[in-house]
């Protein structure tokens, strides 16, 4: 059972790293600032979410999982606020 949990956790973390790499590839490959914002926000959110899922089984029983999920939610909220602002600024230039 614990081996299965560990395997799934490892898989989720590795997949998360793939999405972070995809976000970085998008940052380098995409043609304009707003497209790069798509890459940096959406791919990285999924990557971070998968890494959080992978780390959940290892979190301390009290508060640990809540803290991990809070990290994901705070990143989502801050980039939801910053993304449209940056896209608006990029368009004005």
């Amino acid at each position, binding site marked *: 059972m614990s081996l299965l949990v560990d395997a799934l956790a490892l898989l989720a973390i590795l997949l998360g790293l793939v999405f972070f790499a995809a976000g970085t590839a998008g940052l380098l490959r995409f043609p304009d600032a707003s497209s790069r914002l798509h890459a940096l926000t959406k791919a990285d959110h999924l990557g971070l979410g998968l890494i959080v899922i992978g780390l959940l089984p290892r979190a301390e029983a009290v508060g640990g999982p*809540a803290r991990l999920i809070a990290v994901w939610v705070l990143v989502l909220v801050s980039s*939801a606020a910053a993304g449209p602002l940056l896209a608006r600024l990029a368009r004005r230039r």
Partner: protein
Amino acid sequence: MAAGAIRFALLLLAWSGITGGADLALGALSAAAAACCSLVLSPPGALRPSAPALALLVLRFPWQALRAGMDVARLALDPRRAPTPGEITWTPRLPPGPARDAFLAYASLLPGTLPAGEAADGSVIIHALTTDPAIADAMTAEEARFARAIGADA
């Protein structure tokens, strides 16, 4: 006053959840400041959020995040595919104000769309990685769901 106290209590609860109960004095100070800001930015009573619609929105979100991430990752990693970015204009139903801003922030997390400011005629410019006219309809459907959840559809 009651709304402020409830917000303060929830923020302090979030603080103790994240810190594990450390530095409660600092947490109380931060929670009080945050509650004051929230009362100014979002006065109580203006919206009546609907719990079932809100739950639906939150439960759908991981699926949306998955679709959005896969979408971008495919475009970024597959050398045979390249993004064809473009802008579409879309007319929101929500009036200008905090509710519309909140929806636009939320929409930036959804697959393929990134709000990028307003056009001169008051419509919203959406930056899309793959330009597709269906995006406007999807935004309208998503906006209706969001408005129901936060109670701004009345």
